């Protein structure tokens, strides 16, 4: 258990992801690297967990709807002291706890994802619940851009706007890739910000690796008097932080070997991030 002050530096989080991916011979590294800064800012500055309790009744909700980015969230949860170090060194060992996709039985994970397009709706329900109870709780749902191919996302968007769920924020990890290729070549999403705006959201597009921009955008949303749900479109780079992984969709699936692991560690250690 890590009991020291959380270190949500992107560099530290990426190193944790690399270590666990190498230990578990796990895939989905690129999918985790595109959301590192988004999660770092959320955990550092925004998410409220009274008593540092991931199950606190009046917590904010972070729903990782793109469950394949789960290693990035594990890395943050390690910094909070919610996960033991052995869970990382023994990742994917027989009988181990942490899976390759988010699982709601791990305190701190709100949904069981991996089948895409589920977390958005669950998050809308949580936000509706907070509205009915008149609490200050915020709900953040992190979806992938490929994930918003799924129909329930748009069903939920209609509902969130209809019911003025101003406490609801979807964050779209727009890294431009999905499993089999570029999003524009599979099902072109066009202007995602405009799409959410047309569904009644307040929306803004930012650089998803610029922590100050992320933080400012979130603050701006919560400080506004608008009753609309929010959409933060984060332009990101799949595999961000390791040059040979960036924009290279093979790192959706590829495992690290000794050589690529060492190279990736060097790249992360030497990066300015």
């Amino acid at each position, binding site marked *: 258990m890590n009991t020291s002050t959380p270190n949500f530096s992107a560099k530290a989080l990426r190193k944790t992801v690399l270590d666990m991916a190498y230990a578990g011979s796990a895939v989905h590294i690129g999918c985790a690297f595109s959301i590192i800064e988004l999660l770092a800012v959320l955990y550092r500055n925004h998410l409220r967990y009274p008593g540092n309790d991931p199950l606190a*009744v009046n917590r904010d909700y972070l729903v990782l709807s793109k469950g394949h980015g789960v290693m990035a969230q594990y890395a943050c949860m390690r910094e909070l002291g919610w996960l033991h170090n052995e869970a990382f060194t023994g990742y994917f060992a027989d009988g181990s706890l942490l899976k390759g996709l988010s699982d*709601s*039985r791990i305190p701190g994970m*709100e*949904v*069981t994802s991996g*089948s895409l*397009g*589920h*977390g*958005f*709706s*669950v*998050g*809308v*329900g*949580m*936000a*509706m*619940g*907070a509205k*009915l*109870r008149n609490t200050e709780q915020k709900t953040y749902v992190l979806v992938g851009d490929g994930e918003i191919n799924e*129909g*329930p996302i748009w*069903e*939920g968007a*209609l*509902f969130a706007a*209809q019911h003025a769920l101003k406490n609801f924020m979807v964050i779209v990890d727009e890294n431009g890739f999905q499993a089999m290729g570029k999003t524009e070549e599979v099902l072109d999403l066009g202007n995602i910000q405009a799409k959410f705006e047309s569904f009644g959201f307040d929306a803004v597009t930012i650089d998803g690796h610029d922590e100050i921009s992320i933080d400012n955008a979130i603050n701006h949303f919560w400080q506004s008097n608008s009753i609309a749900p929010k959409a933060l479109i984060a332009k990101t780079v799949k595999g961000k932080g390791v040059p040979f992984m960036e924009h290279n969709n093979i790192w959706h699936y590829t495992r690290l070997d000794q050589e690529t692991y060492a190279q990736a560690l060097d790249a992360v250690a030497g990066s300015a991030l």
Partner: protein
Amino acid sequence: MRDAFSDTIVRLAKADPDVLLLTGDHGYALFDDFRKECPAQYINAGIAEQNMVGMAAGLARAGFRPIVYGLSAFVPVRVVEQIKLDISHDQLSVILIGDGAGFVYSYLGTSHQSTEDVACTRAIPNLSVYSPADRFELTACMNLAYQSKASVYLRMGKSDRGDVHKGVPQIQVGRLLEVKPGRSGDIAFIATGSLVRTAMDIAADLYPDAVVWSAPFIKPIDSRQVTTICAQSQVVVVLEEHSVLGGLGSVISEIACEFAPVRILRVGVKDRFSEHCGSYEYLLKEHGLDRIAIEQRICAFITGN
């Protein structure tokens, strides 16, 4: 049965402000009382069942007690994955109502007819499947679903087949209810939903020594009780307005073949869709579930022809 449903959800919602009714834009007049009595607890989620069920999971996580209403063809069949991942995986307290099960929507065709919902749901871990036979079982099942805080799929079929009980029965999870006494060593009828009344009528007229059981629970089911029934019977006849693949007939057969082998006639919907349009009674005939056809099948089964 529908009045009993309306009365029950109004009563539950007035007693517990955390009870919410979610509907996928269905149940117009059915919810008149609820909307009047508990307007703040009524949510029309629109024609968007997948989102509705996911939201119900989020609301349950936030401490609410959602009752999710849809037509059985849509809730649960359209949303099986949301039920599995978002609700049952964590045993969330959500009651899913599938109305109009079987051939209720006889005139509308295959999209609204639902004869595979039990098969789809009973393989989902942590999910209970209830199938009340009349208004009294409906009330008892709703009360139990609420009190148990379990994840429950409740199947509502044809609602005007007549009462099976004289009042709200005492029920226990998994237990079958004897609705007509019989003699050990004779025939046992085990029926669920709309066909319990039919089984009682057939038994009363043709097989006075047969016992008739109603199965308000498809899952969990008391396998010891089923074993005893099978062991004490010469022949078992299972009746349901559902596919013979994966429904109550399968449940009874699975238990019997392991613990008390007995000849079992599974009366249900064969592995086929409806061909034609017509009244509910017509559709039952088309599928061999009208009383005459059932009687002929039972007779042939017993005599070995």
